[in-house]
């Protein structure tokens, strides 16, 4: 492997979450009965005309600015012509030679430190509908078409061939997702198809400046699939070259089940899209001031936020990275810190217990039932000595499960820490009387014996006894 180097570029489609479609006012809502989120325009009926949704342009500019792109003052829409039944017009309105944005970049972390990945271009286009087959596409007796998705706005982000490993590709994809998600223009859900990725990949001898012949891999539906498919494809290409063969320029599809890439169509079978400017749409002339307004409205992006966490909250860079990995998590963290101004403690709870529980339950932070104020209340209960750290874990889990306030949980479950000296003294006396052997060991100098006795007191009080008090009372009596 070290004798070869991979060259990878990604083409990522991101569905924009505008209320209406890119060229008409049909809803973009996901799901819905087939062919109910449609109108004459997105169905491509005879005589209809597209009109650009201004919010789509705004969202594209937002995403482009977040990706450090240069916004084109003049861009246009083109028609990409090819026949497929999921396309109402048999052409897709896209942008060809004058995209809305170009020349951006994204920084990713690699083992050798931060690496800048170039973004060649970002353009807008309309999504297609989808075909519903009865079983496999090759044997289906008929197919149905659902045009609900036709005309949903997309941006396509095309990276430069700057990625060198499957790991880098995954990181780029994760970072891209985070940044775009931060801007609020997309849900970026790979499972729902609002984030899709195709990869271009070639290999070359290490040190070579020339690109090898590339293949394009489609059907990469998860970060894991992306990484696995690239790893497989690199191996495959090296093997072909090592055996004296040549790489064929072609489109391949990732077979998740078998863990292999398979040929889909060769260069000769590639479509001639016959791009030409869409005469139904006038060129987009974008006002610089408007772009600046959008730039000013951008939220703090992950890199800036991470730096600030390190600077303002004195968090380790790693922690800051985890806490800023999604906007929702960072927002949650910051809300907690506002309610309980100790970033380190809040961070530990979020990175430890909260992320563990979310992962275990396959949940995202936006589905979390614990509200920032509740976490703060729980931490305050600890500070006041109402509950111990150990009890807090139990309370936290209950909060996570039920969404109840920590006070309520503590009351309902009788988890209030016992700090009544008389009550604990009685238990301590009982434990001393019931464990004469251990008491003797301790008095003989076995420090460890004290731990056992404390444990017995805690057990008798179901963990509710104030640990400091138990220690003091035991020591006084021994």
């Amino acid at each position, binding site marked *: 492997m070290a004798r070869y180097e991979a060259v990878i570029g990604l083409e990522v489609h991101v569905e924009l979450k505008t209320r209406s479609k890119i060229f008409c006012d049909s809803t973009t809502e996901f799901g819905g009965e087939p062919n109910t989120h449609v109108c004459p325009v997105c169905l491509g*009926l*005879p*005589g209809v005309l*597209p009109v650009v949704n201004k919010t789509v342009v705004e969202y594209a500019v937002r995403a482009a600015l977040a990706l450090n792109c240069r916004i084109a003052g003049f861009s246009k829409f083109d028609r990409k012509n090819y*026949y497929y039944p999921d396309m109402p017009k048999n052409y897709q309105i896209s942008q060809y030679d004058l995209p809305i944005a170009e020349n951006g970049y994204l920084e990713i972390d690699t083992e050798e430190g931060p690496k800048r990945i170039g973004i060649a271009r970002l353009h807008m286009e309309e999504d297609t509908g989808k075909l519903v087959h009865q079983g496999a596409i090759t044997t289906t007796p008929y197919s149905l078409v659902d045009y609900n998705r036709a005309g949903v706005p997309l941006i396509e982000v095309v990276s430069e061939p700057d990625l060198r490993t499957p790991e880098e590709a995954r990181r780029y994809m994760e970072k891209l997702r985070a940044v775009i998600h931060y801007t609020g223009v997309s849900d970026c859900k790979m499972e729902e198809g609002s984030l899709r990725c195709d990869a271009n990949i070639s290999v070359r001898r290490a040190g070579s400046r020339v690109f090898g012949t590339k293949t394009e891999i489609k059907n990469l539906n998860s970060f894991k699939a992306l990484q696995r498919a690239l790893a497989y494809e690199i191996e495959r290409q090296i093997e072909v070259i090592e055996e004296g063969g040549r790489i064929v320029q072609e489109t391949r599809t990732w077979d998740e089940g078998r863990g292999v890439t398979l040929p889909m169509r060769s260069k000769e079978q590639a479509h*001639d899209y016959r791009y030409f400017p869409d005469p139904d749409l*006038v060129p987009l002339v974008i006002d610089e001031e408007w772009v600046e307004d959008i730039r000013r409205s951008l939220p703090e992006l992950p890199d800036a936020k991470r730096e600030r966490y390190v600077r303002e909250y004195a968090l380790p860079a790693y922690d800051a990275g985890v806490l800023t990995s999604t906007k929702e998590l960072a927002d949650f963290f910051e809300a907690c810190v506002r309610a309980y101004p100790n970033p380190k403690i809040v961070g530990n709870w979020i990175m430890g217990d909260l992320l563990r529980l979310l992962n275990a339950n396959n949940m995202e932070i936006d589905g979390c039932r614990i509200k920032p104020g509740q976490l703060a209340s729980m931490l305050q209960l600890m500070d006041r000595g109402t509950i111990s750290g150990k009890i807090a874990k139990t309370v936290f889990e209950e909060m996570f499960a039920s969404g109840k306030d920590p006070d309520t949980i503590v009351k309902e479950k009788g988890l209030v820490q016992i700090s009544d000296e008389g009550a604990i003294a009685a238990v301590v006396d009982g434990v001393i009387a019931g464990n004469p052997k251990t008491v003797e060991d301790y008095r003989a100098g076995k420090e460890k014996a004290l731990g056992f006795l404390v444990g017995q007191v805690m057990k008798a009080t179901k963990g509710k006894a104030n640990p400091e008090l138990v220690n003091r009372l035991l020591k006084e009596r021994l």
Partner: protein
Amino acid sequence: MQLYRLTAHELHGLLTKKEISAEELCETVFERIEAADDKICAYITRTKELALERARHVDGLIRNGEGVSPLSGIPVAVKDNICTDGVRTTAASKILANFVPPYSATVVKRLDAAGAVMTGKTNMDEFAMGSSTENSAFFTTRNPWDTGRVPGGSSGGSAAAVAAGEAVCALGSDTGGSIRQPASFCGVVGIKPTYGAVSRFGLIAFASSLDQIGAFSRDVTDCAQMLNVICGHDPLDSTSARFDVPDYTGFLINDVRGIKIGVPEEYMAEGTDPGVRGAIEKAMALFESLGAVVEYTTLPHSEYALPTYYLIAPAEASSNLARYDGVRYGFRAEDAGDVIDMFVKTRSRGFGAEVKRRIMLGTYALAAGYYDAYYLKALKVRTLIKEDFDRALEKYDVLISPVSPTTAFRIGEKTGDPLQMYLSDICTISVNLAGIPGISIPCGFAEGMPVGLQIMGRHFDEGMLLRVAYTFEQNTGYHKMFPSDTGLGGF
């Protein structure tokens, strides 16, 4: 005088004076349709019941003394490539023979709001591709002045309907001359407004950057009334212009003194029928006698207009017509084995020969490796042609020319030779390439057939076109001629 021979403004007077009702007018026009259309074949679909209902509604408004507009109750025919909610719209193609749109074109809504009464949908060349209406998938429309001749095209049905008294006004569409040329052949007024002046929403696209909806009428006054209704910005059409729509009747001024009129010599070149040339020269003399300055001028890139047009228009058409694949609506070949087979069979059987010819031309022009040499080059030449007009119209207020080098030709005369057919639009296509307005008005006869005078002007200067046209009309009488008046077997 028969009611069906009157103009909209004459009928408007009778309607508001309550000398006739809109329902009577509607009945009269349908009687005329029933009497004449077996011979003329102007209509693909007649909407009599709908029309009578609308007419009665307008009568109600007149009775109640509510605001009645100049087109209220006026029977108007609509070319069958303009979508009408609930009324079959075929573009004269087999592939859309059963298509009923769920919405109306913006122009149709505007006419409706103005109280106009739609009589039906008129015949045309399939997808507006043609110059004779012989490319209709259903039947050929006849010229009312001589039913052995074509009415011109592609809006031949609309032109013939207005000429024969089967409608008072009509809508057409003009991509390379499809309103002006049939208006000329049928002896009526036809205007192609500036590109962007009239919404294209609901017009079944042929070549989007050239298509423009316009109007047919029996005189220039009615033409202005039609423009008043159909012009204006439409948020549903990105290419429709935001401009202050004037009251076009304000330009109906019988005075051309001092107005500079240019005559592009290229448009009077050899190949122009002597009768046509004679009529145009007489028009030039008339304008001069009325105080206008008339001079020959030049549009040097004219010879490239035809090839330029036949690259751009088919290229756009090849993409615009891709949606007719049998998947969603319209004709579908039922004996297909798979989806590609369905596409191929549906389109092979659904489209006529001329449409297929242009789809192939356009697909070729846009193909990888040919784009720069053909389509891109054509766009560049288009700019040169536009600049020719800009220069000429800096010097002249309007340009005049024949609409077509000949009068209406005989049915079948040119069907075997597409290139000869294309040459019929030689004087009109540049106007579409330049995006400027053009009007055709009757200016005489050659061997019994009407000759049209084309007046071309600056972008959004329809007003000047109307003024020059109106002056000509008021000083001649051609617009008052009806086919049956010639005694030559006309209707």
